[in-house]
């Protein structure tokens, strides 16, 4: 099963600093992200598979990573705009 989306990405909340890929996206690809009615053009620094996240703004080390308008973890290193955001650069706050 492969999900294709012409929309490509989804941002849930105006405070989010990550977007979710709605289709498999490739490194070097430019995607358009709409946040608060403002359109940002972001060049992806990694491949982003369906359902995975990438940064829509720079997230310095030790900052909150926000999805659904809530904190889903803390960045464990500097994450650049367009970079894959996952277990290699985010730690859970709670566990």
């Amino acid at each position, binding site marked *: *099963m492969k*999900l*294709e*989306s*012409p*929309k490509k990405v*989804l941002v*849930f909340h105006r405070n989010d600093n990550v977007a*979710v*890929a*709605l*289709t498999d996206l490739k490194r070097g690809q430019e995607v358009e992200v709409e946040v608060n009615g403002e359109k940002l053009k972001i060049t992806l620094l990694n491949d982003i*598979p*369906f*359902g*995975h*996240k990438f940064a829509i703004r720079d997230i310095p080390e030790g900052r909150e*990573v926000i*999805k*659904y*308008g*809530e*904190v*889903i*973890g803390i960045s464990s290193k500097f994450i650049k705009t367009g970079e894959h*955001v*996952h*277990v290699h650069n*985010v*730690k*859970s*706050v*709670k*566990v």
Partner: protein
Amino acid sequence: MSIRVQGYVRPNGKVGVRNHVLVIPTVVCSAETAMRIADSVEGAVTIYNQHGCCQLPYDVELVERALIGYGKNPNVAAVLVVGLGCESVNIHRVADRIASTGKPVETVIIQEAGGTLKTIERGVSIVKEFVQEAAKIKREEVDISEIIASAECGGSDATSGLVANPVVGYAIDKLIDLGGTVIFSETTEVIGAEHLLARRAASKEVADKLLAVIRRLEDFLKSQGMDIRGSQPTPGNIAGGITTLEEKSLGAIIKAGTRVLQGVLEYGEEPTGKGLYFMDTPGQDIESITGMVAGGAVLVLFTTGRGTPTGCPIAPVIKVTGNPYTYEKMKDNIDFYAAVIEGKETVKEAGERLFNEMIEVINGKPTKSEALKHREFGIYKTLPTI
């Protein structure tokens, strides 16, 4: 803004969206007889109660609360309680509590009536009268704020947290903003995001109760050698893009929207006010829905990724998916497809469309689970049968 809908106003003022006559077996020993009675009368439904005896006191209380809650649910016009006669569940307490709503309630006890056939004969004659009387109750125009809805997710996949849950969350926020009430549940799925949900609590008491309910479950699981926090998210979740447990849990609880948490309910307990309530239930769909409907929910918004046929004996279940393949494959069971991934609509647009679908269902449109007579029922138990 206010929205008017067509509902059944019960003698206690509560509003239902269906007009069922319900046959309640107090114990598994009377369930088959109850089913024969309900099957004999057009317009009657029953629930297959697998418990009610040889259980420890706390679990007997859960069963009684579920049965009473089903009987009291405003989707039910009248109730026949069918007991065996020697079960742990107190037949008369069940009947009396349901009768406190003002709706007609009768009782038949198999050991007193003298066996299956006499019970069926008496039961059918009572239920036939109930059905004819219930038909006289007409829908009336009421404000949508009288509606108690519930949110459930099951058979989830990567599209659930991305599309179906946010879409249902949008519709639920809208219902709450219009003065309605919503129950959501599944304690296991809140673990990891409880601190975030607690921040939305109306008071410190509500936040403390939420955290206490989570701790109670985690302590029990730990006593059984299970550690949810340590084993989540699963390798499959991580491969799917879920990074942390709080992200996974947020993806689940977003189905209940974003409004203030007004209270935390025990299994099958009724909300005391309007707005958003959390109920302590297991993650298992059927037992979770049974608890929320026992708590007074008159309809269920059910998100799914992989698809499931689950319905409810007395409440319409609106099945929602964001997965186009699942919708095509499981069209028999899924009512609503949110075409967000295909780029045909936004979460907000799909949420508006779902809200309108919910109004049609409130006003009488049967859901697919109703049309196919899906009447799954199961009561949560915490301890072994003895």
